[in-house]
């Protein structure tokens, strides 16, 4: 088979696979080629498709390849079709997912240690969305579940592997302070001001209010 025919077949395979994508291994099996040769043709095809005059591109994700449209054309498609990952995640789910992605395998307790809050719900949501899964158990009593990310995670975030995750920021740059004033915060500021003026020990007022509440 000639090389232009091989590329044609790969193009067809990418097309039929659509959002599911196609693995290198599947291409190898279908075309009876070795991995190196497949990689070679894929690189050539990706090059061809990267041209400005093309409306489709090949993206590499989770050990496979996928046809997608180009980001700059997004406005044209938004009106026509639903976005593949239009369901966005809550901040809680994103934080939990970030911790799992970087620290996998990790138990719920370790996640909660980092977040400082209970994290059962985001873990459930992420499991339901197939973004994380059980990857093992802690040895010893309790045998807590260890979580890791899934192939769907890589797909939804357009990653080839978890190694492609950007390095964790380890220094803490000072960020600009958000200047959002709302009802709550003006209230908050008022109270700060008044509590400063009165300069009362905070423990005393605290007791009273806790008693009233609930």
């Amino acid at each position, binding site marked *: 088979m000639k090389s232009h025919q091989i590329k044609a077949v790969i193009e067809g395979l990418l*097309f039929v*696979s*659509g*959002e*599911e994508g196609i693995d290198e291994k599947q291409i190898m099996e279908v075309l009876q080629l070795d991995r190196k040769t497949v990689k070679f043709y894929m690189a050539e095809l990706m090059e061809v498709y990267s041209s400005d005059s093309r409306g489709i591109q090949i*993206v590499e994700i989770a050990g496979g390849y996928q*046809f*997608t*449209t180009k*980001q700059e054309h*997004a406005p044209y*498609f938004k009106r026509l079709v639903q*976005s*593949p990952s239009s369901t*966005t*995640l809550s*901040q809680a789910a*994103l*934080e939990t*997912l*970030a*911790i799992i*992605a*970087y620290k996998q395998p990790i138990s719920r307790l370790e996640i909660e*240690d980092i*977040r*400082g*809050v*209970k994290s059962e*719900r985001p873990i*459930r949501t992420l499991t*339901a969305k197939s973004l994380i899964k059980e990857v093992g158990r802690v040895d010893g009593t309790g045998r807590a579940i260890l979580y890791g990310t899934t192939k769907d995670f890589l797909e*939804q*975030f*357009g990653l080839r592997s978890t190694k492609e995750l*950007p390095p*964790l*920021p*380890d220094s*803490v740059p000072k*960020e600009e*302070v*958000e200047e*959002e004033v*709302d*009802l*709550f915060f003006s*209230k*908050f500021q008022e*109270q700060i001001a008044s*509590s400063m003026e009165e300069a009362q020990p*905070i*423990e005393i*007022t*605290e*007791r009273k*209010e*806790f008693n*009233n509440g*609930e």
Partner: protein
Amino acid sequence: MQYSVKLQTFEGPLDLLLHLIQKNDLDLYDIPVKEITEQYMVYIHTMQFLQLDIASEYLVMAATLLHMKSQMLLPAQEEELGEDEFEYDETDDPREELMYRLIEYKKFKEAAGELKERERVRSDLFSKPMSDLTPFLKDSTDSENGPNINVSIYDMLQAFQRMMKRKKKTEPVYSKIQREEIPIDEKMAQIMTELSRHHGKRRFSELFEREEKHHIVIAFLALLELMKANVIVCNQEDNFDDIMIYQKGEHTFEKSSD
């Protein structure tokens, strides 16, 4: 309604603390404990003022901060402390632990932001559903194979079971909660009785009848009062560990049976 939206942007006490530190332009590596504690408490009060639910994690952090504040005010205490537990080296900065946690949390908060951005970019790339390949099966010569998928019925049932397990955890437990008035003085006395009944040592989790916020808060406040009165000492080994309460005075700190 407006502020409940705003409040949800805090993902817990660490997030709130980071916010306070940033908002007031404080140094994360040198947190002024007094200031941050006061602001934090004001925040908690404001939440109550607006009659919002306060998650227990926020109260635990309040305790940590208050404890830290008192630790930094009081001269280090010399105590006979049994074997391993409960040791404060004078040179230890009580803020270190909190600082470490805040830095660690901040990292992942930022990483979450990056994930969000990635997700957004990714959602701008459109694709198409996988094509129906059944027609290719139909005129295949060896069509008796079917789709030849490498899963068994047990894989399917297992998947179903996993889903049920996940769902089970999502279902709420309905229970009736009766309001009770528990005066703090009474609770304080109760704790002291408990302590003397258990060789002067008790876990915080053993100090309230039910794990309800109301009970926990009262027990917690009573503890603070008792600490202030200098009749008990508390120790928490690790974040989210149970707090150990030791009675001061005639009782020695012996290890309990567990």
